[in-house]
């Protein structure tokens, strides 16, 4: 699957899109593929303040569990509740409908720490 060029990426395989001060975060296609079909997503609470690098969510398949980290600091302002009923949305559409949470970004300069698609591609094989 081609990596969306407009997104930003982290070493821990999250993707980030940015719109009007709000960052939307999910896991990459590579990441969902490592876990196989998801059975559960542990979502954070709205209103939680998180700092960059903090564990925020957990994605689980039948045999695996992985932490999802906040790529940037801020307040959680939205979570993808539909993942509670149908976690496999992440497998089907990791970069779209499978987003996990949104952060009201407190420090935009942290965006400099994120990678663009080309840099992410270098640390991640094609899947």
């Amino acid at each position: 699957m081609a990596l969306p060029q407009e997104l930003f990426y982290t070493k821990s395989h999250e993707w980030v899109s940015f719109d009007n001060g709000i960052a939307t975060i999910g896991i990459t296609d590579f990441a969902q593929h490592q876990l196989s079909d998801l059975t559960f997503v542990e979502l954070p609470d709205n209103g939680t303040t998180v700092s960059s690098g903090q564990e925020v969510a957990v994605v689980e398949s039948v045999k695996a569990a992985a932490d999802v980290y906040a790529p940037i600091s801020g307040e959680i302002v939205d979570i993808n509740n539909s993942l509670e009923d149908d976690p496999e949305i992440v497998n089907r559409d990791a970069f779209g409908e499978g987003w996990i949470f949104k952060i009201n970004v407190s420090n935009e300069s942290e965006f400099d720490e994120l990678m663009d698609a080309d840099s992410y591609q270098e640390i991640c094989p094609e899947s």
Partner: protein
Amino acid sequence: MDSYAVIFKKPIDYSEALQYQYRLLNARQNDEIPDMVVLLQHKPVITIGNRGRKNYLLKNLDEYKELGIDIHHVERGGDVTFHGPGQWVLYPIMKLGKKNVDSHGYLFNLEEISIRVLDDFGIKGYRKKNKSGAWTDCGKIAAIGFRLKKWVTFHGMSFNVLDRLYGFETIVPCGLENDKITCLERLIGYDDYMMEKVGNRILHHFANVCDRPLKYFFDDNHIPEFIKKLKPPLN
């Protein structure tokens, strides 16, 4: 850089091995050590994964105590399983994403290792749809449950070698109420060197399947200092 395999010959207490895994995990996240794989046997223990349900335990805590079986809740994927002497446990502590083979999916690769080991001994192993692990016509032989933190793997896979599976009779393994558990000894008969042979084949196939050429270290000697200090106490 080569990856390191550390092999323990004597069974290790589950909590000690878990502490060891955490130390390696932390060191791997910080790039202080290369990708590693630990091969060991546990003292008898039942572990319950994230989604594990207690009603899969068929005995009460006193009865488990009497049988000499410890019980641990662990933050890996997967359900309830048993570990004990005669079963190899493989704990890869590696950063996923650096190698092309990682794109096959880590679960797929772990299963592949077991299937190739079975093939070495003339047994046909296979995957089952919607059930992880490695299977034979006589039942499930390898179980998988892992966790990723910052995309470094820990926990992993167990492979039943000798016919000492009594612990499985006290649980509903992995929630599989109608599936049998088996081991290599039941399939091809006993051999004095069976554990050693299977251990070697597991590491051999791990190196190939995961594309991580291995340098071997044994519990009692030659472990590099920086890994030694992470090591669990040996009995």
